[in-house]
């Protein structure tokens, strides 16, 4: 009995072990370095709201776009066995559409913002469907298929913006990018929570999870059981499109402007990294969205820690790379096998010892 529950627990946590260990180590490291690192305080921001502040808040807040993209990316990875490298470019397009519609409206009301979001969502889903078409119908590997949008996406954004970096100046959008008056938690964090909730509801009330995993593990068998791999793959890209539009809108609202060249730049790499650190196989199949979200926070915590250590922002990448390599080495199949072999030998040794005593 005890053995069974032990196994079940290991199965339940297994995948999340590495990101959790990483977060734990980063927390301990920071606490040793600066015991007050994670202290949270309330302060008044420039619009006169009482809000939460501190390194922990800025980590969780800063990782919002990454976490949202990682959720969608997990699904694409699971269904297609490959990754979308165009999310950054697609987010720039989505953000441009968002800004353009908001600038078109004379008074910016809640309605216009909603309309702008819906429009940018539709556009992002359209581009998602384009990528999905190439992958699902033409059977092109995701990375190659999305290389197209990666190459020209930001140019499309440039065209939408008319070659400028237009700004938006509205209370509503800045509330989306920072704080809603009266709510001390940063809005992007709330949006991440909503997205996570939405995903869990979708998994609860549809068979998306089972179908996606089936397609990712054995496409041919899935098809013979009546699942349409084409539809599932397409769907995963369209869902990623929704995530892209949310992340793009948050990014735009945060800055109050759209710069097609810098908005969420290089985020595709971090997103894929988040998925991998979360213990999901980049080859597709079984997945856990929670792992990817944790992965996103690991990456952001690492970045903030490095900033706090006064590492120049241009150099952060080098140190990040070292930590990533350490993480993936610990999580690598070879090290895992070696470790489980060690555990087995230990158990066997103990069993033998018990026998001898008995």
């Amino acid at each position, binding site marked *: 009995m005890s053995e069974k529950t032990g196994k079940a627990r290991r199965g339940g946590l297994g995948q999340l072990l590495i990101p959790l260990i990483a977060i734990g180590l980063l927390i301990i490291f920071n606490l040793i370095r600066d015991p007050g690192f994670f202290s949270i305080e309330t302060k008044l921001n420039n619009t006169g709201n009482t809000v939460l502040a501190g390194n922990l808040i800025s980590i969780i807040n800063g990782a919002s776009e990454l976490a949202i993209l990682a959720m969608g990316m997990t699904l694409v990875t699971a269904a297609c066995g490959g990754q979308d490298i165009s999310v950054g470019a697609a987010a720039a397009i989505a953000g441009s559409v968002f800004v353009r519609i908001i600038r078109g409206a004379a008074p910016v009301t809640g309605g216009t913002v909603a309309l702008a979001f819906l429009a940018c969502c539709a556009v992002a889903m359209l581009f998602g469907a384009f990528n999905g078409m190439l992958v699902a119908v033409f059977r092109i590997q995701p990375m190659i298929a999305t*290389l197209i949008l*990666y190459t020209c996406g930001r*140019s499309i954004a440039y065209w939408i913006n008319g070659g400028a970096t237009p700004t938006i100046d509205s209370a509503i959008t800045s509330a989306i990018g920072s704080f809603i008056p009266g709510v001390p938690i940063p809005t992007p964090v709330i949006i991440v929570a909503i997205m996570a909730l939405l995903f869990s509801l979708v998994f609860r009330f549809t068979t998306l999870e089972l179908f996606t995993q089936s397609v990712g593990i054995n496409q041919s068998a899935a098809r013979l059981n009546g699942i349409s791999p084409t539809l599932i793959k397409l769907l995963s890209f369209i869902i990623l499109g929704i995530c892209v539009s949310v992340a793009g809108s948050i990014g735009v609202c945060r800055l109050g402007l759209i710069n097609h060249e810098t908005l969420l730049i290089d985020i595709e790499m971090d997103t894929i990294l988040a998925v991998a650190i979360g213990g999901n196989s980049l080859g597709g199949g079984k997945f856990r969205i929670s792992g990817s979200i944790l992965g996103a926070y690991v990456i952001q915590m690492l970045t903030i820690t490095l900033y706090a250590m006064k590492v120049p922002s241009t150099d952060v990448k080098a140190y990040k*790379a070292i930590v990533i390599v350490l993480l*993936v080495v610990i999580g690598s199949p070879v090290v895992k096998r070696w470790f489980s072999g060690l555990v087995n030998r230990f158990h066997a040794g103990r069993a033998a010892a018990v026998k001898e005593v008995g």
Partner: protein
Amino acid sequence: MKTRREPLTDTQLLMTITICIFIAMYALAMIFLGGGFLRAQQIFDLLNDNAPLIIVACGLTVVMIGGGIDISVGGVTSLVVMSCVLYLNADGNLFVSMLLALGIGLAFGAVHGLLVSYLEIQPFIVTLAGMFFARGMTTILSVNPQKLTHEGLNAIRSIKLEIPWLGYVAKNGNLIPGRIELGVLIALLCVIVIFLVLKYLRLGRNFYALGGNQQSALMLGINVKKTRFMTYLISGLLSGIAGFVFMMHTGAGNATNAAGAEMNAIASSIIGGTLLSGGVGNVIGTFFGTLTLTTIKKIVVTSGLKDPWWQSITTGAMLLFFIVLQSIVLSRRGKSRAKG
């Protein structure tokens, strides 16, 4: 027994398509745009500017044939450029700087190969980390652009191969000979060497076997781990060479050197007929892939669409064209095989 002509293999078919399209495209440019495209120097310029890209694309092709991916090539190139410039500016030895370039490349290749092959970590993540590390190290070395001041190398840089009969007559009546930089010769040498390795060396054929079916390769008695390790090592080495050639071309180190080279290299390989799934591809194809990619950009600029976004849009459109074309060609082939 007379040897019968076999139908083209997948590799040959895709490569032929690319070469034909490149020639057709260039011919159209000559007819409709004329001007520069009628001069041999146009091709020489393309080669002069893109020799490093050709070299890294060759390395990437090898990795992709083996069924892997290496997205660190641009980062490593840029790190090599910066390291060599700084070393040479500090009165370094020219020969040692070459060793430095090769050493950095090999070191990255070896670490990637080790992690991917022997620790079985996903290549995308490993080489992504490699790219981060190389880019980060570049800025740690110097955030500011560094101009190369080493006289010896600057002297070598200015050496250009002049071919009078491929020159053209300028407006003032002077004959301007065709000029090729040394880097281009290095690039061509790399293409030829890798081509020979892939075609005539056991190791090269093992790359194809590995990419074709890893499990089979193992059962056929190939040392899969070592073979895969070698693909990354070659790619690293070529990134090192590319870095040195890049430095010879630009004569400066800059943190943004070779930005986006990895994606350009991947695009070149794909256009040249290399499949990311492995086992299919050829560096000759990649060479023409690089030329196709860079020619289309030149055509866009020459047509008067100076806005930079036109270039990336056309590049994207061309990628779409090639990718879809290849997908259709290969799937039709599969179908006709199943029937036959």
